[in-house]
């Protein structure tokens, strides 16, 4: 199986605290990696490093056998990062948000109405996003998954605020993505209702002896 993403000996220090050191991981096509750990252990930091938002103190991240800096454009086109901030404009309606989001992703042929229906927001299209519930806003953010062509999805707490139906919908979409040879890296406090040998887990623990002065 081809290796999609590989992290080599990552070390990260935030605000004088070592979150993890010499952390390595590997993820192949069609695989899912669940990053677990207590609050503040550095799960989000790890995801942001792999997404290319953060520089690790030491170590490297490779995509398709190439280091991150090597081909930033390939990186940006082949990965999709959705953080715990939904990247939804509060002043714009759901439809407008989706419309601009598809354009920002260069997916001009995607029909925003269709997308709205897929994520179950039909009928709410003319309400500014700030008046929608947290779960509905998250649906707007996650709508990107339904047209994304990226091979690697990096999702920070994607299930937060979603209802049972939304979670089910997301699982279906994950399944399709994996079957198409995509990979998935995610954090979640909820246990994944996932069975299968393709699921890997990695756990980040506090290492409290490194708590230092700030």
């Amino acid at each position, binding site marked *: 199986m081809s290796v999609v993403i590989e992290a080599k000996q990552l070390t990260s220090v935030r605000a004088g605290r070592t979150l993890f050191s010499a952390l390595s991981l590997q993820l192949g096509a069609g695989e899912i990696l669940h990053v677990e750990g207590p609050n503040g252990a550095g799960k989000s930091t790890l995801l942001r490093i792999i997404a290319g938002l953060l520089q690790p103190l030491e170590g490297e991240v490779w995509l398709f056998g190439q280091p991150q800096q090597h081909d930033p454009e390939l990186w940006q086109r082949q990965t999709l990062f959705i953080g715990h901030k939904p990247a939804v404009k509060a002043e714009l309606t759901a439809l407008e948000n989706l419309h601009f989001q598809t354009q920002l992703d260069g997916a001009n042929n995607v029909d925003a109405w269709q997308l709205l229906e897929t994520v179950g927001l039909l009928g709410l299209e003319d309400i500014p996003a700030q008046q929608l519930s947290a779960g509905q806003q998250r649906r707007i953010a996650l709508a990107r998954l339904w047209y994304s062509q990226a091979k690697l999805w990096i999702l920070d707490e994607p299930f937060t605020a979603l209802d049972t139906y939304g979670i089910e919908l997301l699982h279906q979409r994950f399944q399709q993505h994996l079957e198409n040879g995509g990979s998935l890296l995610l954090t979640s406090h909820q246990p994944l209702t996932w069975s299968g040998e393709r699921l890997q887990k990695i756990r980040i623990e506090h290492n409290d*002896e490194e*708590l*230092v*002065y700030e």
Partner: protein
Amino acid sequence: MAFDSWQEVIWMGGYGFYVWLAFGVSILAIAILVVHGLLTRKKLAQMAVKKQQQQQRIARRKQQERHRSMVTNDSTS
């Protein structure tokens, strides 16, 4: 020496106040900078002591935990 007496040095041809004010404040400012640097180092030393104590506390707790787990292992066997 451009002056004949100490009085003249202080008087500075009528400009004594300005000259000594300028020199005094300048030297004071630089002295404050030096002293602040020395104090910072002292503060760092105090922080190092605190950190050492913190490390010792954590080490002690870990040891207790290890001890406890050994005890429970003994009781189960």
